């Protein structure tokens, strides 16, 4: 096979992989977003139900679907656990590192899985404010996680574009 790499996952990855929390599509979500691509082998779709609670916009429900490796599924599931019940503003602050730490520290080659999860969340938040006035805490320019998510998606486009498959 291709050049292998060891993947010493923590037991938490396996736990979430076996019993993912908040799995599945949501009926009538307030907003949904997707990050990654089939060609990367990593893709997360995130669904949020957002409600106004005493003037604050709170994530009442969060679910996901994931096409990806065990770490990808675990990262998406952990993200939904972390953001449930938080205000959008609080959720925005969650970093890829927090997700990785929550999973007992992902192997470095799998960091992109937690980056992708956060990338999907940030996309969902931006979609939520699409056409509305941005709250002051929401930066106009893309965050590191959003940029990296886009880079991964674009990289695979480039690889595809560059290497015509022999047929």
């Amino acid at each position, binding site marked *: *096979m*291709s*050049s*292998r*790499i060891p*993947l*010493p*996952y*923590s*037991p938490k*990855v*396996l*736990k979430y*992989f*076996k019993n*993912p929390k908040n*799995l*599945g599509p949501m009926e009538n979500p307030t907003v949904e977003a*997707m990050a990654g*691509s*089939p*060609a*990367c*082998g*990593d*893709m*997360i*779709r995130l669904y949020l139900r957002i409600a106004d609670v005493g003037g604050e916009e709170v994530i009442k429900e969060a679910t*996901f*679907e*994931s*096409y*990806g*490796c*065990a770490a*990808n*599924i675990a990262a998406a599931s952990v993200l939904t656990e972390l953001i449930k019940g938080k205000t959008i503003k609080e959720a925005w602050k969650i970093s890829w590192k927090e997700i990785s730490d929550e999973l*007992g*520290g992902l*192997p470095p*080659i799998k960091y992109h899985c937690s980056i992708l999860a956060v990338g999907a969340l940030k996309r969902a938040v931006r979609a939520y404010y699409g056409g509305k006035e941005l709250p002051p805490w929401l930066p106009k320019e893309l965050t590191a996680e959003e940029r990296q998510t886009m880079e991964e998606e674009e990289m*695979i486009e480039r*690889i*595809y574009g560059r*290497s015509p*498959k*022999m*047929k």
Partner: protein
Amino acid sequence: MSVEGLLREHGQPEREVYFDHENSGWVPPEVVEAMLPYFNRKGFGHPSITNKPGWEAYEAVWRVKEHLVKELNAGGPQNLVFTHSGTEANNLAVLGSAIASGRKGGKVIVSSVEHLSVIFPAEFAAKLLGMKVIKVPVDEEGFVDPEVLSAYMDKDTVLVSVQAVNHEIGTIQRVKELVKVVKENNPEALFHTDACDAFGRIKLDVKELGVDLLTLSSHKILGPKGVGVLYVKEGVKLEPVIRGQLSTQTLWPGVENVPAIVGFGKAMELAFKDFSNQVRRVKSLRDKLLNGLLNEVPETLLNGPKGDLRAPDNVNISFLYVEGEAVTVELSLKGIYASSGSACTSRILEPSHVLLAIGRKHEEAHGSILFKITRYHTDGDIDYALQVVPEAIKRLRSISSLKPSHPKQ
């Protein structure tokens, strides 16, 4: 990082069936038994030293070489080199012949589906010696077309390396025809075949094939890890690529791994006992698993050819809409051990070059799962796999964000 906690969380599956013989595997008890005396009872000396334990070691190595000569029609033990792995034997073949050619700016031709232990040394030879590496394309079943190969041949070609059987998709190359084409174009060019996955599956006769160099690996025939063999046809010049104290061999220094070589000899004996019946049985189990999975699970692709041009032990299927690493983990939890050509298991986050070379798209390669059948598998093992694998795919598809029902991104 330790994976002790991971193993605890994984737990002990009730039933276990090992199908990951592509990557490595367990060793039959007879092989272990055969090796044991050579650790501390006899032949534990150095095979080129003049004392009794040394001569016993020499004798043990010699016997295995004689046995190999018979199985390969290799002419004589002097035409065989033991290395410490198939990877090392391929390095010796490719780098050793490129260097020995004395050429600057020659050409090395490999197929695009070779094992990395052929492709990387070819690229390294190119870098060291200013040579050109050509990766010959294959068709959608992994075959090298003799005419296509012929078109790449010229007087600068130093070496052509095309494997006998592909390790991932089981394509049995028409080596004899390829050798003929190469020699017709340039009689000076050497032909190497990596036969690691062919040995013990199909008949190999080096004279009949006409190859100059041929590689074997012990753990690909249920022998211990850490023994490789290179057949070097009489008169073929190689430059040793590892330097040090020579022992019984001139192309590979260092003390021979005697217990492992003895184990390899035993594994070979078992592999060739009642050969045609064993192969027939393995092939029927292969087809049972292969057809069973293709019938049971919707949205699949068979990777590699069908029927007699496929290695008798190889099952490689892409399950669309799921990612292979997740599948191997899910299967492992149920005691089915297999591997994937997905990018997620790789160092470079690129899927298997073999699957890309046969024209699979990235997402098709990501969902590939490889099973290897041995003569030790039973009908019950295959039945168990046919129960577990479809369930695993079903669960992961239920998680997947990539489904036919979802519109494209």
